[in-house]
């Protein structure tokens, strides 16, 4: 019996000869990530247990992105814990305001993640790097504290589910629509404790930003990972982000694929030719309907950003739709480029001007409103359409507010009309 891509990566990071789903393993990590919410607790645990030095200063990444620029004094305290630890441990990869970005957009962009790696992050959306053929998964602060000690983590080897997408995507249908559709089909625990593998002719043609959006939301189906086999598109991406590693490894990466006789607990196959832009309605990412069926939903706010959809191609799509148009009076449009680099690109390409002229506001990179942190909190009775990843009760502020999830194309179109609108 062969192995899936996920199993191959896990096995390669152990001393074992073989692994099987359900088995508990201890594996060596290539990278471990923490942010201003989860890392302070990890650092506290690490120190409390009497440890003083991290296992490898090159493999510990800290990104203060959730409540930064600090929304209040207590958030400032937490960010300070990261800054101090980074300085004391001489961490190579600490990203202060000014060179930071939303972690899951930043790490791929900086070339810190690439095919074949095993990565943990104390953030559930760490599964984003699966788009690069990297086994990356979200863990808790204590797991991160342990990783600081010896660079290892325990895993239960997951079962695998294969998702095959066939057909041809409609003009405004993106990776976000594919993943929302998928979660709508299988439910928020449809891949509980499994590794999802996205494949098929539609995925082969999908650009990296759309792939990141898909892998990012694997967790919303309960999955440990959302993997895509490395191909030419992956390699072209890494060639730009980390030329050195690309040079050394790209020949091996192209062979990094699931075996033909690998075992899958389930296989789903869909023809997505007729798929319309999708929207997840309150209060679960699985409550998915076509955008065209939701035109009676009036909006108070639209947010375009996050680790799911704050990348340059997301902003380009939004700008294409918003160019020369005005945001519906009374509606707040908040656009958040995910990293400093994306922000700069958006300025150079004239996207920021389009957004501001349309009546939108453009924020510095932050997770901000996605998790109800700051920069766009909702009050009672308000509705927001966001390109983010979760729409739980109270996720963006008031427990009496409503969050809908969509692609940037649907979000931008709806910002103009004031109600949910398919482009």
């Amino acid at each position, binding site marked *: 019996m062969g192995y899936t891509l996920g199993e191959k990566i896990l096995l390669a990071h152990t001393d074992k000869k073989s692994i099987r789903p359900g088995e508990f393993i201890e594996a060596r990590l290539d990278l471990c990530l923490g942010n201003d919410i989860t890392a302070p607790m990890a650092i506290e645990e690490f120190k409390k247990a009497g440890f003083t030095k991290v296992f490898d200063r090159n493999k510990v990444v800290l990104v203060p992105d959730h409540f930064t620029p600090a929304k209040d004094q207590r958030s400032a305290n937490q960010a300070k814990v990261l800054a101090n630890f980074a300085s004391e441990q001489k961490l190579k990869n600490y990203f202060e305001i000014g060179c930071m970005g939303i972690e899951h957009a930043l790490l791929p962009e900086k070339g810190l993640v690439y095919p074949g790696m095993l990565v943990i992050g104390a953030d559930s959306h760490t599964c984003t790097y699966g788009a690069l053929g990297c086994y990356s998964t979200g863990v808790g602060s204590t797991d991160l504290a342990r990783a600081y000690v010896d660079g290892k983590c325990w895993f239960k080897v997951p079962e695998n589910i294969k998702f095959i997408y066939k057909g041809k995507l409609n003009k405004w249908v993106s990776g976000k629509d594919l993943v929302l559709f998928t979660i709508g089909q299988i439910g928020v625990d449809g891949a509980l404790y499994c590794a999802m593998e996205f494949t098929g002719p539609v995925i082969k043609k999908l650009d990296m930003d759309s792939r990141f959006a898909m892998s990012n939301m694997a967790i919303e189906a309960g999955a440990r990972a959302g993997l895509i086999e490395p191909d030419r598109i992956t390699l072209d991406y890494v060639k730009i982000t980390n030329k050195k590693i690309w040079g050394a490894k790209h020949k091996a990466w192209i062979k990094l694929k699931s075996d033909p006789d690998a075992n899958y607990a389930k296989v789903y196959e869909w023809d997505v030719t007729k798929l319309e832009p999708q929207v997840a309605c309150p209060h679960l990412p699985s409550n998915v309907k076509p955008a065209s069926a939701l035109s009676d939903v009036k909006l108070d706010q639209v947010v375009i950003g996050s680790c799911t959809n704050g990348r340059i191609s997301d902003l380009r799509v939004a700008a294409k739709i918003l160019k020369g148009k005005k945001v519906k009076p009374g509606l707040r449009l908040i656009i958040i480029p995910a990293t400093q680099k994306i922000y700069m690109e958006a300025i150079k390409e004239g996207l920021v001007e389009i957004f501001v002229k349309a009546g939108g506001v453009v924020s510095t990179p932050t997770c901000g409103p996605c998790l109800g942190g700051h920069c766009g909190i909702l009050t009672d009775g308000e509705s927001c359409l966001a390109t983010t990843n*979760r729409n739980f009760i109270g996720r963006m502020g008031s427990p009496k507010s409503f969050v809908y999830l969509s692609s940037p194309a649907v979000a931008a179109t709806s910002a103009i009309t004031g109600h949910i609108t398919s482009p």
Partner: protein
Amino acid sequence: MIIKGKAHKLGSDINTDDIISAKYLVSTDPKELGSHCMEAIKPDFVKSIQPGDIIVAGKNFGCGSSREHAPLAIKGCGIAAVIAPSFAAIFYRNAINIGLPFLELKDADKIDDGDEIEIDLSVGVIKNITKDQIYKTQAFPEFLQELVSKGGLMNYIKESHK
């Protein structure tokens, strides 16, 4: 270890934002986190808890974010254990790592709000005193039992690095 308390029923897919809203993630203190547990979905939840009480929920408990503040908030408000048919993966590992007892019980819906429950963790048996019923759950896999018996992940690591 025996846990005895009243059941507090919650629905399916209780997520980490339900358990502890992100606005409170500026603290790592279990007591402070605990004072806001389930606030958005059940404002009176914390007030109704007696130390030792038990959450009995539907499937996929703890889905959503990786915040370890979630199991800490549950512990911090006095809850001694969580029973549900299934748990989200990150919540599962966080609960083990910080030592919050939880049991996977397919028939969790047989327990009603307010039932007196007694759990024998060592054998994974749940007794419903109110209904005079007994439910058997699956024992933890060996690896996890070892983690729990050492008092959580960091203690386990400390010992192995001596």
